[in-house]
């Protein structure tokens, strides 16, 4: 028994070291991208004036979907009182907060003038879907901070006796409070959380559906200009957020007890349902404009499916993000490990679906003859994310990972550890 424990500890330690090395590599790789972005503005990107949005906009909608999805998952507990997920719900809120930060970083780095983002607050044009989005994010950010705080206050007070950083952190957040929350206070906090979570549902649907609408309202882009887009964005958010959370609970929840097993199973079922729904919507998105093989959308989507980057659809989106997770979820429905892998696979490869939503709308010239008129390196219809773009994305991901482990470290109750 002793030996088994020792072996387990050794394995988890070597896993930890391996993880830290991977993270360091990712971070170092990412720092170079950050330097490029800050020192050379947008110069090191492969975007151009005809394909003005690329990897960063796609990763932004990927992250923001993860955030909306995690948040909506937490409302299953805080609004719809689903008991099974009660213990993991605070973690879902923290994940929503972290992925929101990652999304905001992505889109901030994409701006031509990063220093002017405040313009959207000072002189917003509320006719613009983008202005709405920024204001709704801000409201969501504030709401998330308060909701997370009230959801965690009780456990933070309990953690303030802990030694080291977790104790200091908890004492700072609770104003050095010593005595445990009274029952009345606990009830009041719960009510606040329920109210905020209830307000958060329309907010999350509005801002993420709004991101879809940001694209869908553009009459100039045939592929984007469909009422299906906001729905696709929402379902994608539920799916990717749910999948990420499934993976996190499956692999990083410390106690491997029955509760853990049942929770992973439930999350796996939710992910499976959403994956099927997403597949149906993708079919609708592609088959309707392509069925008769004619029209501008047909050409653009054909390029997506059978052009030089067709493998992004077939290998990544269909293979790794849909079929393989489906197999894992169905065949391994009893195995938390398989379910966890399915979740991680969907969450990570979901970037491909985002790329496939953003780029097809931009790849076809809006006027025939444009590619053959005056052109240079930035006036082309070719785009492949540059090394620098990938590096900056790696930086954002490494920041997200660091924030997650930091949060779990300083707030042990997040992962169900008992500190009372």
């Amino acid at each position, binding site marked *: 028994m002793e030996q088994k424990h020792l072996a387990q500890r050794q394995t988890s330690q070597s896993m930890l070291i391996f993880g830290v090395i991977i993270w360091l590599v990712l971070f170092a790789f990412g720092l170079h991208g950050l330097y490029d972005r800050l020192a050379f*503005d*947008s110069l090191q990107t492969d975007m151009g*004036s005809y394909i003005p949005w690329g990897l960063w906009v796609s990763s932004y909608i990927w992250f923001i979907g993860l955030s909306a999805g995690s948040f909506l998952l937490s409302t299953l507990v805080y609004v719809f009182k689903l008991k099974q997920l009660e213990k993991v719900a605070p973690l879902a809120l923290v994940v929503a907060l972290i992925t929101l930060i990652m999304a905001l970083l992505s889109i901030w780095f994409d701006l031509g*003038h990063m220093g002017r983002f405040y313009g959207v607050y000072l*002189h917003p044009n509320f006719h613009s879907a983008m*202005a709405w989005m920024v204001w709704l994010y801000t409201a969501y950010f504030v709401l998330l901070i308060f909701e997370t705080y009230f959801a965690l206050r009780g456990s933070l007070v309990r953690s303030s006796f802990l030694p080291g950083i977790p104790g200091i952190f908890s004492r700072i957040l609770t104003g050095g409070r010593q005595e445990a929350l009274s029952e009345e206070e606990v009830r009041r906090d719960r009510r606040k959380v329920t109210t905020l979570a209830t307000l958060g549902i329309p907010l999350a649907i509005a801002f993420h559906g709004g991101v879809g609408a940001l694209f869908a309202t553009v009459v*100039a882009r045939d592929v984007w200009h469909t009422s299906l887009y906001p729905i696709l964005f929402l379902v994608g958010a539920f799916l990717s957020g749910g999948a990420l959370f499934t993976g996190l609970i499956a692999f990083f929840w410390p106690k491997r007890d029955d509760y853990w097993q049942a929770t992973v199973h439930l999350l796996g079922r939710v992910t499976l349902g959403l994956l099927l729904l997403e597949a149906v919507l993708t079919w609708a998105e592609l088959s309707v404009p392509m069925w008769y093989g004619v029209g501008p959308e047909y050409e653009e989507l054909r390029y997506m499916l059978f052009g030089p980057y067709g493998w992004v659809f077939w290998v990544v989106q269909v293979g790794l993000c849909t079929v393989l997770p489906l197999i894992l979820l169905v065949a391994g429905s009893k195995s938390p490990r398989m379910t966890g892998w399915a979740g991680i696979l969907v969450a990570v490869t979901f970037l491909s679906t985002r790329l496939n939503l953003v780029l097809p709308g931009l790849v076809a010239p809006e006027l025939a003859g444009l590619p053959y008129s005056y052109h240079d*390196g930035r006036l082309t219809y070719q785009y492949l994310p540059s090394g620098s773009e990938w590096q900056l994305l790696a930086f954002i991901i490494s920041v997200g990972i660091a924030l997650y482990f930091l949060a779990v470290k300083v707030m042990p109750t997040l992962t169900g550890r008992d500190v009372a």
Partner: protein
Amino acid sequence: MPENNFIKDIGEKTGTRRDVLTKGLALGVGLLTLEAWTSQRTLAASGSGQVSQGMAQIPTLPPPVDPWQEDVILVMQQDLKRALSKPLDQRHWGMVIDLQRCIGCQGCTVSCINENKLPPGVVYRPVLEETSGTFPNVSKHFLPRPCMHCDNPPCVPVCPVGATHKRPDGIVGIDYNACIGCRYCITACPYSARTFDWGEFYGDIVLGGPLPYEEIPSLEYGKVWVREAGKSPIGNTRKCQFCIERVEKGLLPACTDMCFGRATYFGDLNDPQALINRVRQNRQVNQLKSELGTHPSVYYLL
């Protein structure tokens, strides 16, 4: 948005004339030759501007103005003077491009780049080229494409900070110092008329920095813009602004001034006397993607 009643009037007139044409009167289309100009003079002198059935074979150019009296550039300069004497909101700047006269020299593209000191990645007025048919039945078509200065511009409402705006004189402008560089407007323009200043210089390739002429400021919107990292217009969306800073000083836009084929006309769409309105009278007129409801201020003569 200024109401452009005159355009509507013209539309109706064109409609009536089209009816006449369908009744058997034809308008010839010809090459820019002395003979063609002479036939025009005869037609103009006859006072009708319409060709009788018997003359339908004779290749002619429609009578835009009295080009034998004055150079079109000088005529348009007079038009500008008249327009500038009116209050700003009573002008409606517009452009007409005669596709029969365009020879595809791309001189307008280059003069625009020169006027506005445009860097790589930025072009305000490319000349689109299309080849149709197969050898030996091949033909080439050219279509200069400035910003359409739409009266219902899709690029304006999308701008989150209101940097892109419609002016009372019809110009769609960008406030460079307010633009955050999100590029949403680039995606929203159905004509790809917007491009982004990525901060490159033509001299980067050989000198690793700007060539001397690239350090000369541009004067767009009547301000002095020196391209320096982190400062506008680098990091901004840029587009044709009809050289409004020149126009307000009584000069024609750079593209119109230099157009080698005299295919580009510029002026006040609200002024019935302006050449820009007269040249459209006897011609088939088209607007790009008008089905979108953008109401461009740029007209093409077919």
